[in-house]
């Protein structure tokens, strides 16, 4: 589905624009949660997923990949987005702030382990058990 969308995007839309869209949507998710608007947060979640997933796909479809640039930017933005969303969730009436921050810390520990595995074992796997993606393309 992502490739189908990527092939139909106008030429002026660049992968970095989609990355930026993902960041803006992450801020939107946080603000929506903090404002106790879970439905709006859900809409922003879809936009965030699109921006976050489509940037690499667009680069691959157009054969404009920059693997190291994409790897660095993608994972940096993931970490920032996770922190922003966790803080927004923590500021919402649904969970305590410490719970939202606890979720962020756990996610970042998983991410750090993945990056250390990449360095020491030469393996990049986002899957834990049967959950998550096994491999992920970079751009």
């Amino acid at each position, binding site marked *: 589905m992502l490739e189908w969308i990527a092939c139909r995007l106008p030429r002026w839309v660049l992968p970095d624009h989609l990355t930026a869209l993902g960041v803006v949507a992450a801020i939107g998710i946080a603000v929506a949660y903090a404002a*106790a608007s*879970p439905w709006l947060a859900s809409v922003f979640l879809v936009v965030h997923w699109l921006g976050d997933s489509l940037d690499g796909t667009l680069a691959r479809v157009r054969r404009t990949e920059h693997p190291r640039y994409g790897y660095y930017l993608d994972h940096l933005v993931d970490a920032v987005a996770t922190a922003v969303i966790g803080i927004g969730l923590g500021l919402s*009436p*649904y*969970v*305590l702030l410490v*719970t*939202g921050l*606890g*979720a962020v*810390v*756990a*996610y970042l*520990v*998983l991410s750090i*382990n993945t990056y250390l*595995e990449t360095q*020491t*074992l030469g393996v990049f796997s986002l899957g*834990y*058990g049967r959950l998550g993606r096994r491999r992920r393309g970079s751009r």
Partner: protein
Amino acid sequence: MLNTLLGLGVIAALDPVVWAIVGLMLCAVAVRAARNLRALAAREPAQAAP
């Protein structure tokens, strides 16, 4: 609807659910780290003292 859920205390149950997920995540890292450390220790035998 949200206020109803809040009133019924359903949403208050979210904290333990999130903490349970956090616990699962940390357990998954611990299991994976143990496996990785065994693999790395086997790959890199301890160096002899000079």
